[in-house]
């Protein structure tokens, strides 16, 4: 199961995503980028059943692009998150899609914001969030060590601790974690831990 650890710092948001693509007991690909950019300053990470993931990601990315072209105004993270939630909850009773999503975005007026949407259509805005089985191991660590308005170095230090716990205790060997940052300059990759 995919692991996504995300935090909000001071005027930036940071993500650590694992990069393996597994199939049964084999690692098919070790450097997969699971993060999708929506607009200039939003990241969308979808995890769950493989077919649902690619279909839903494509659908959301292209719908948001179409709608922002129609209005001529880029959407805020809040609007995109609610739009995704609405699509998911409409699918729930017609053709359920088993995916969990994290949306991390930066708006000029609000700053960074992080939303988590689960497969039933629950939407929550959070300061830090873990997605996947790793949440059982990492959340308690984040509860203890997370502080609001962290700078980049302490935030990366916290991520290193979380990844350390996973490498120590998590059954699945998630080889590398891709670190990405969103701030006022846009989205960028920092490296692989």
């Amino acid at each position, binding site marked *: 199961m995919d692991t996504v650890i995300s935090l909000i710092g001071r005027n930036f948001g940071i993500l650590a995503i694992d990069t393996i693509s597994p199939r049964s007991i084999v690692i098919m690909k070790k450097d997969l980028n699971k993060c999708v950019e929506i607009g200039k300053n939003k990241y969308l990470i979808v995890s769950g059943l493989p077919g649902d993931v690619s279909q839903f990601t494509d659908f959301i990315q292209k719908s948001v692009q179409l709608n922002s072209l129609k*209005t001529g105004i880029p959407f*805020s993270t*809040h609007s995109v998150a609610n739009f995704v939630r609405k699509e998911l909850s409409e699918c729930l009773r017609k053709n359920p899609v088993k995916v969990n999503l994290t949306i991390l975005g930066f708006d000029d007026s609000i700053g960074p914001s992080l939303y988590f949407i689960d497969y039933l259509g629950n939407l929550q805005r959070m300061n830090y969030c873990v997605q996947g089985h790793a949440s059982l191991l990492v959340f308690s660590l984040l509860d203890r060590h997370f502080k609001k308005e962290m700078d980049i170095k302490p935030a990366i230090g916290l991520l290193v601790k979380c990844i350390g716990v996973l490498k120590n205790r998590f059954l699945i060997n998630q080889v590398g974690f891709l670190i990405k940052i969103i701030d006022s300059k846009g989205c960028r990759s920092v490296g692989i831990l």
Partner: protein
Amino acid sequence: MSKKIDTKTISFCPEGRLRQVEFAMESIGESNITIGIVAKGGIVIATEKKETKNPFGENFNSEKTFIIDNHIICAASGAIPDSQILIEHARIQAQQYKKIYQDYIPVKKIVEIICDIKQQFTHKGGQRPFGVSFLVAGWDSSNGLQLFRTDSSGTFSGWKAAAIGSNSIINQSILTDEYKNDLDLNQALSVLVKILYKKTNSLEFWKIIDIVLLVLDDKQQILIRKMNREEVNSLVS
């Protein structure tokens, strides 16, 4: 819906114009004056109304001004029954947008929605165009205070000050002379009075004019209110 659609009403004439649309604009040119001005702290829209005795007192929803959502107001010139259908549709679309995105609909999008409907009636045969022109004023977080003007053909444009209805060309040129970029609301109101008061000779100004304000305060809260009898009369006394 009859099977024989009269295709002549919405076809180009030999000179390359849509006659019905132009006739619709003629009819708007005979109807009530509506003026809108974008000022520094808000937008003010004034419309002429018929001098009638309203037994129910002054309620907000006078005939020619409408609230589309908490951040968009609109005034109509022309056939008011036509306008009510478009306003109804616009209100529904604004709420549907809010339902999906949990955010206020951008002003331009509402104007596009209204104009798309107006355009349909200039495109497919058998039905006349809407004989109504709107001034849509609103605020959104991407573009701030905006004023749009729409006409029967479905075109819209953004304005800092606009006049529709009768004598619109003369009124528009007065606005061009009088408008400055840093007008505040009181100065905008005095410009409005300059245009409207001389057209109406009644002593009771409030009986024939509706003035609606969309005011933006420092906390970016939007307040929409209609000026009451004393305030309107104080503008001319």
